[in-house]
Structure formats: C-alpha cells, structure tokens
C-alpha cells in the first residue's frame, strides 16, 4: 500500500487528467445533497431541542369552544403542574378606527410553563385586566406604542408591551399575537357561547414520564371530549411539515444534480483512465501486478474524491447556520445552526458510492491495459468490461438509491423522485441517440466546417448521449417547476379576485345576522353576503373506532387531525357537487346525517352509510354518511369538509360566519369601521391580505426551488464544459488539420458553434416539451387548476440555457481554437 501511495503521488504530479472535473462535479453535488439533508436534520434537531419551549411545556392539551370539565381538570392536575390559556381571533382597533386581526390569548399567571414571553425593551407583561401586549407587526401596522390605548372587543386596553416571541404551537402565524390576562379576556366580552375559541392546558410532567403516552392516555380516557394532544416532540410541527415539503422538492433537485454530476464524474473518470493507460502499461512492463496498479489508481481517485466530498460537506455543514440567519423571521423554529453530523455522514457515504459507481468501470478497464500495446504504439483503446466488473457499479448505485429512500422523511416521494430521474435520464439518453442518428443523416450537408460540426456529434467516443442527459435533466425540471409555479400564481392572480369575497367575518352571534345584513346593505350596496353557521369540533370516531385508537392515520385523512370546522345546511352549498349518495331533503328532520368531502372520504376508505362521530362542546354526535361531495376549493367561499343535516348539531351553541363580496363598492373600509363599532366581537379577515401572505410564501418556496434547479443546470454546464475539455485532443487534431488546409479561426469556431448549437437546441426543445407536459399533468390533475403558464418565461429558460451551453462549451474549446498549427502538429 505504501508503494501504491508513492506511485500515486508521483503519478499525480503529471496532472489530474480529468480528475479536476470529477472533483468539481462531486463537490458541487455533495454540497447540494449535504445542504438539503443537513437543513432537514437541523430543523428536526431544533424542534427536538426547542419543542418544550415552543409549546410551553411537555404536553399541550387543547379543546375547542369550551373549558375542561371538573373531571378533566382533575385529570390534568394529576398529570403535573399546568397553565391555562384561552385563544381566539379578535380585532385590534386603533384610536383612528384602523383595525387588524390578531390571535388573542387570555392566559393565567402560570403561563407559560416553559419557554418565555419575550417583550421589546420598555414593555412588560399585562399586569391587570386593563392591559394587553401585542406582536410587533400589529404595533407597527396600527402605529401603537407602549402606553397607548386602543380597543379590543368591547373594552379599551392599554398597551403594556410589544411581544417579540412567545410560545405558540404551529408553523406560520398569519396573524400577530395579542396577550391579556384571564380577567382581561373576560373584559373583552368576546367569549360567548359558540365563539370559535379554544382552551389550552400546558403541562409539565414529572421527570421520566413519556409526554406522548400521557397525551394518548388522556385522549383515550376522555375520548368523547374532542381533546387534541401535542407533545413536546411535535412542537413546531407546522414548521417541520413546511421544511419537509420544501426539503422533498429540494431533495429531488439535489438528486437530479447528483445524477448529472455522476455523468460528469463518469466522463472525468474515463478521461483520467485514458490519461493513465500509458503509465499503466509501462508499470506492468517493469513488473507491477494488477493489484498495485488498482491500488495506485484508487489512491489517486480516492484522494481527489475525498477532497471533493470534504469540500461539499463543508458547505453542507455551514448551510443550517446560513439558513438560520436568513429564515429567522419566516420560520417559527430556527434551524439548529450546528453541523448535522448524521446528515453529513450520509452525504459522505453517498459520495463514496456515487464515486465508485461512476468510476469503477473506467478504472477496471484501465487496469486491464496490456503492456504489449506499448510495442504497437497504441495504448488508447479500452477493452470491453467483463460482466462481473459491470455489476459492482450497479450495486453501488442500488445502495445509493436505497440509502436515499431509507433516509428520506417521505420514502415514497424519494423513491418516486429517483424513478422520475431515472425515466428522464433514459428519455434523454434516447434523445441523445436520436441526435446522433440525425447528425449521421445530415453530415454531408453544408461546407466543411458545418460538416465537421455535425459529424462531431456522431464521432466515435462522442459524449452526445451523456451530454443530452446532463443538459436535459436539470432543464426539464426547471421548466416543469416554472410552468407549475407560474400556473398556480396566475390562478391566484386571476381567479381569486373574481371569485373570492373581500372579507371573511367570524364569530357573528346568531341573533345579530339581521344587523350584519342591514349593515352590508347600507355600507356596501349591491354586495353579496353569505352567512353560515359555524362550530368547531374533532372527529372522535370512525365507524365506532375511536380516532385515538387509530395507529396510522392515512396521509390524506386530514379531517381526523385536530378540530375541524363544522356546519349544517338544508341546501347543497354553492361550488359543491354530490358525487355519491344523496343530499337530504330541505325539510329533513331525521337521525343525524353528514356529507363528506370525497377526497377525505377516499383517503379514509369510507362508504356511504358509514358513521362518523364528532365531538361538539364535549358531546359526541354520531352521524351516518349520506353523501360525498366534490368541493371546488377555488371558489374561496366557505367550504366545509363536513356538512351536517339540520337537526344534527344545531342544538349546540354556535356562531355565524359570513363572506362579503363587495359588488360595485370597491372599498370595505366603511363597513369594517361600523362593524368594529357595533359588533366588536366579530372578527374580519381581509382576503387580499391572506392571499398576499400565501403568495409571498409560495413565491419564497418557488424561489428556493428555482435557485436549486439553477444549480442543477449549472452542473449540466460544468459537465458539458468538462466533456469538451476531455475531448480536446481530438478537437485540437481536427482544428489543426482544418487550419493546415486553409481554414480561418472564424471558420473553425463555426464548426464548434454548429456542434454545440445543434446539441443544446435539440436538447432544449425536448426539455421544453417534456417539462411542459409534466407541468400540465401536475397542474391539471394534481392541483386541479387550469394550465396557464407564463409562456414567454418558459421559452426564455431553454433559450437562455442554449446560450449558456454554447458559451460554456466555446469557452472550454478556446485553447484548442487558439492552437497554432505548428504547435498542434508537434502535439499530435
């Protein structure tokens, strides 16, 4: 081995012989992969470390629209020390009349049990029933300072402090927080029978007690109470879900970049092997056994690959800290900024497997070089690999795929992603072969420079197929993502303003419906007001099986998670269509019936006639499923997954919700002012603000994914440039011979231009077609939106890629283009 080291060190003095490209491809690919996996791991670690402070205790038990009963309170006390808070939406109304929606919490003195309420300097926690603390976004928007007075519900409050952070479960908060004490909450007058509020109990468990088991135990004991349990490991689960989803998209792109990089590495390893054949033959001539040759080559490759993996890992190690500093305002949980050793270890192992898979064939073939070839002056050819030698790279690829799938948070997505990449790679390999055939058919066209350019696409050893995959894979992904995102954004821009109401009103007392109607008629003439009853409650049993006893809740069965909005209606709501069963008659007065969203029903495997039990204010109500509905969610109205028949749940106290489409009147400001004056318990949500927030979020995800995809395309350019460099000897020979017979530099450059233009244009057109088809399928069938992408942008992407590819290839070919014939002849 010592000898192999020595020989490798000396051999490397002669240059990297293609290993530079291998270094670059591997380093960039591992940097991408390690960054994505490190980021996911750092969020998990942060949640694990901060979970307790995020939910304010070891366990958070919450229930909608009521407080715990005496029995439940006793059970909570038995679990450990607890703190109580009541939350609901409320309007903050500034002295000037400007209003803003906030998430109001009325907390007892013990709240929070873990973590802390962080206030801006100069502020303090509300100390009496007349004080409130609000989030900095609300204070800024309403121009409020500590000491200012403003209205909250039916009462006036003094601003005691500005909240910088506080324990609150969930990922993204759409509204800023507001905090009062229990007496303050009572003063607001907002807690009425049927108000859409929830009561949460933070609990500190005795050391060693499992919070998950404690939560499940409580839920099982009070299974009909509709309790939701969140343990400290689930704190920030919204953030985790967001990062997981974004992480999945980024993982797909990172894997594509890795596949492209793998192709570059294979080219690089082949160039390296070719550059070493002469030395290998000489070493064998003077007595070196194959094992020594193999060891020498592996040491050289291992050194370069090791350095590349280290460089990639360094980027991956720094990513969580970088993202933590950038995303702090966006994410509820800042990623753990420390290097994620587990994720880095996986990425390193992945790097080793990919290096092996990409280079083993070339190394094995090079070590078969026969010294007798030296006698004939031909050591360039490579013998075909034995079957045994082909199996090892395939095994390494399989192991890498298995590692990716096993370590992904969503195994199915990772497996599908690898499948998509493999299918795309196969398609582009076929397109590469087609380009070769086309070139074969066209190579007699045009003058000598054109002919040479076309023929180069089909010359022996041309990397046309490999380059088609390298350029096409990233480009197809970018086009598909851009077309999907632009379609969705266009849908939001065009459909929502037409269909969506201007305001959502929440917590309208049922006896104030007439007043709201009158107000809308006078302040917003011609407006369209729709009122629906609204309750909240969880599904507590499906066909008699308690949800608390269901081990694995299916992915699409979101109606089983937490409280859901419930309503009742005698007529089928607008934008709803019955797809199975029947809607009940308008005058139905029989046993409880319910109509379910068909997608949720499918995820749960429900049939018409099955039963669903919901908890309303702690009371279980079992209803038979009468119909499934297809809901057009784009209608932006009230779309309840569960709609009950009259008589099922309307005996419980409830409030009303309303949507208002302003009609001819553009501004709702006057209506809002009267609303907060006359009905201070009603909260108004401005749809435009929610849409803007959603668009900003979608935009940031789209931006992150596009940047990552750009990285995959850059990888393709590196591979293209590397491939040109690898064929420089052949290029130089062609160019020198052309110049010997009188071609100018311009004519020679044109031959290269013809080659790269043809290749990149054909690949770009194929990528555009494939990407658009993929996006159309995704947008039409998955999102159920109309396909209306930003065509100029879609065409600009492949056009830009063509220019980039030609530029990269010409830059790589420049040394050969500049070769003087005399110099070139000596080098031939």
């Amino acid at each position, binding site marked *: 081995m010592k000898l192999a080291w020595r*020989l490798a060190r000396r051999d490397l003095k002669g240059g990297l012989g293609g290993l530079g490209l291998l270094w670059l491809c591997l380093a960039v690919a591992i940097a991408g992969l390690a960054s994505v996996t490190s980021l996911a791991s750092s969020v998990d670690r942060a949640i694990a470390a901060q979970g307790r402070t995020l939910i304010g205790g070891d366990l958070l038990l919450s229930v909608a629209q009521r407080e715990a009963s005496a029995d439940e309170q006793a059970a909570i006390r038995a679990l450990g020390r607890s703190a109580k808070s009541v939350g609901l939406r409320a309007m903050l109304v500034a002295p000037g009349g400007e209003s803003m929606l906030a998430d109001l919490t009325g907390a007892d003195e013990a709240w929070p049990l873990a973590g802390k309420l962080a206030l801006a300097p100069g502020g303090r926690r509300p100390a009496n029933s007349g004080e409130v603390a609000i989030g900095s976004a609300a204070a800024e928007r309403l121009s409020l300072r500590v000491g200012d007075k403003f209205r909250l519900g039916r009462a006036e409050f003094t601003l005691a402090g500005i909240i910088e952070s506080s324990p609150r479960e969930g990922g993204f908060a759409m509204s800023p927080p507001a905090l009062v004490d229990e007496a303050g909450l009572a003063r607001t007058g907002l807690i009425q029978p049927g108000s859409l509020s929830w009561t949460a109990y933070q609990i500190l468990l005795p050391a060693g007690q499992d919070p998950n088991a404690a939560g499940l135990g409580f839920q099982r004991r009070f299974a009909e109470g509709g309790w939701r349990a969140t343990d400290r490991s689930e704190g920030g689960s919204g953030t985790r879900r967001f990062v997981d989803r974004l992480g999945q998209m980024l993982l797909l792109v990172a894997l594509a970049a890795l596949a492209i990089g793998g192709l570059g590495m294979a080219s690089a390893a082949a160039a390296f092997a070719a550059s070493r054949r002469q*030395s290998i033959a000489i070493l*064998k001539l003077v007595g070196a056994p194959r094992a020594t040759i193999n060891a020498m080559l592996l040491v050289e490759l291992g050194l370069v690959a090791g350095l590349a993996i280290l460089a990639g890992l360094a980027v991956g190690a720094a990513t969580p800290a970088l993202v933590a500093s950038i995303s702090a305002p966006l994410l509820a949980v800042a990623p753990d900024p420390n290097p994620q050793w587990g994720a880095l270890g996986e990425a390193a192992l992945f790097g080793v497997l990919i290096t092996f898979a990409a280079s083993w064939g070339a190394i094995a073939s090079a070590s078969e070089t026969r010294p007798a070839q030296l006698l004939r002056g031909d050591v360039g050819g490579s013998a075909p690999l034995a079957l045994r030698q082909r199996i090892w790279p395939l095994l390494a690829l399989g192991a890498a795929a298995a590692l990716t799938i096993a370590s992904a948070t969503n195994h199915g997505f990772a497996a599908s992603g690898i499948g998509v990449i493999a299918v795309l790679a196969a398609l582009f390999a076929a397109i590469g072969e087609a380009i070769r055939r086309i070139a074969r058919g066209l190579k007699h066209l045009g003058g000598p420079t054109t002919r040479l350019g076309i023929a180069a696409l089909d010359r022996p050893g041309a990397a046309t197929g490999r380059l088609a995959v390298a350029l096409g894979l990233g480009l197809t992904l970018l086009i598909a993502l851009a077309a999907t995102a632009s379609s969705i954004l266009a849908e939001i821009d065009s459909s929502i303003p037409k269909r969506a109401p201007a305001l959502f009103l929440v917590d309208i007392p049922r006896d104030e419906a007439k007043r709201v109607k009158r107000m809308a008629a006078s302040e917003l003439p011609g407006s369209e007001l729709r009122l629906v009853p609204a309750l909240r409650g969880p599904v507590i049993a499906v066909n008699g099986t308690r949800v608390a006893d269901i081990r694995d809740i299916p992915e699409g069965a979101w109606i089983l998670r937490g409280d859901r909005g419930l309503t009742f209606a005698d007529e089928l709501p607008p934008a709803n269509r019955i797809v199975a069963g029947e809607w009940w008659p308008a005058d139905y007065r029989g046993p409880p019936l319910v109509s379910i969203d068909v997608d949720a029903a499918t995820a749960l495997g429900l049939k018409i006639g099955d039963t669903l039990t919901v908890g309303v204010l702690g009371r279980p109500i079992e209803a038979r499923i009468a119909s499934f509905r297809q809901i057009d969610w784009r209608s932006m109205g009230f779309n309840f997954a569960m709609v009950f028949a009259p008589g099922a749940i309307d005996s419980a106290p409830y409030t009303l919700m309303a949507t208002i489409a302003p009609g001819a009147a553009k501004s709702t400001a006057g209506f809002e002012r009267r609303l907060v004056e006359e009905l201070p318990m009603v909260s108004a949500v401005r749809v435009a603000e929610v849409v803007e927030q959603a668009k900003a979020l979608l935009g940031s995800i789209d931006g992150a994914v596009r940047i990552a995809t750009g990285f995959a395309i850059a990888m393709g350019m590196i591979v293209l440039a590397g491939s040109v460099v690898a064929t420089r000897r052949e290029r130089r020979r062609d160019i020198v011979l052309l110049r010997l017979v009188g071609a100018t530099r311009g004519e020679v450059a044109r031959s290269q231009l013809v080659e790269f233009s043809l290749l990149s244009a054909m690949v770009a057109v194929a990528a555009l077609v494939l990407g658009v088809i993929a996006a159309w399928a995704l947008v039409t069938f998955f999102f159920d939106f109309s396909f209306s992408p930003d065509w100029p942008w879609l065409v600009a992407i492949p056009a830009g890629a063509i220019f980039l590819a030609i530029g990269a290839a010409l830059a790589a070919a420049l040394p050969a283009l500049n070769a003087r014939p005399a110099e070139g002849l000596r080098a031939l």
Partner: protein
Amino acid sequence: MTAPLIDLDNVSLTLGAGEVRTHILKGVSLQLAAGESVAVLGPSGSGKSSLMAIIAGLERPDEGRVALDGQNLAPLGEDALARLRGRSLGIILQAFHLLPTMTAIENVAVPLELAGVADARERARSELEAVGLGHRLSHYPAQLSGGEQQRVAIARATAPRPKLLLADEPTGNLDSTTGAGIVDLLFERAGAAGAGLLVITHDPAVASRAGRTVRMADGQLEE
C-alpha cells in the same frame, strides 16, 4: 545441463479476428543461453516485436511452448508474469516509454520498489551514474534528450539485475551518433550484469555486435 535462458519451441501467434486475422509468428523456435547475446534482424512487419512480446510474456502464443530461465510461461497468470518480468527481465523499447510524471531516478527505482528492494533509490542512483546520468537524477523525461531518455530506460532495465535484457529497436528513435553510443552502452551494461541480451533491430550494424544473429522474415526465423 542448465536450461537455456530463452526456450521457444515451435511458437505460433495469430492476432486480430475474422478477415483481419494475421499469422504473425509461424512455428518459431529459438534458444538463448545465459550470458549470450542474440540479434534478431528483419524488415518491418516481419514479426520481430511480436517475438519479443512472446518472450516477455506480453503475448500468449496460440501454439508452441515458451520457457524463460527454465520456467514454462503458459500456466502463469498476468500478475505472475509481471512479477517474473520484474525479477528476471529488463526491457528496452524504441520509444523509451519512461513514466512522464517521474524523475529519472524515480523511473529507475520503480521496478526495484515493486520488487521490494530496500535501497531502491541508492541502486537507482548508481545505475544512472553507470549510464552517465549522475547529473540528471532529478530531471523529468521531458527535460531529457532522446539519448538520455534511452540511457534512463537502460538503467531501469538493468537495475533489478535481470538475467535477460530484451531491446526492441533501441536506436530506432535516435540519430546515428547517439544510437551508436546507446548500442555500446547496452552491450556494456549487459556484459557487466552477466545478462543475456536479445536485440531486435533492422540495422545490420547493430546486429553485428551480437554473438549470434538470426533473421526473421514473414513470421519465420532463419539462423
């Protein structure tokens, strides 16, 4: 009676396949005793280099038997042949074939290092001094003239103290003056090492230096 150093018995070699299949050697027999020098003279394409490849174990004959220092080469694998070359053979080629990334001393030391010789560098140094290149130890092949490169190749071939030196057109890439110097050096070093020498050449002047000359024509040997 000691076995000949080279013992070829009725060796035939065919290269290529199908229509391009060519009979390179046709029933060649040749013996070379220890310390003996033999020149193989013949025109281009007569099979001289293939004969050398067969003797060095670089090609395997289709028929016939090849023995080197009494050892039949047929049952030996590629690695065993490589070790045999490292131990018993020194090979000098027309195009020098030095490792371009190694200095002169490193090139000469390689076969010694492969054979596990402890003082490989010292021996390489003395071999280079013996061929008159003591002042060029740290030069790379590209920094040496053709004649100097061939001297390094001779030093590399003789450094492991082989029993047999094989030289394939050792002066083919050199001018006549330099070539003559190389031939002198080759015979001198072979004599000093007590090694047998087989020189492949098309130059009668080179062949005349050998103790025995055989002629090769169309894949067949004539004494």
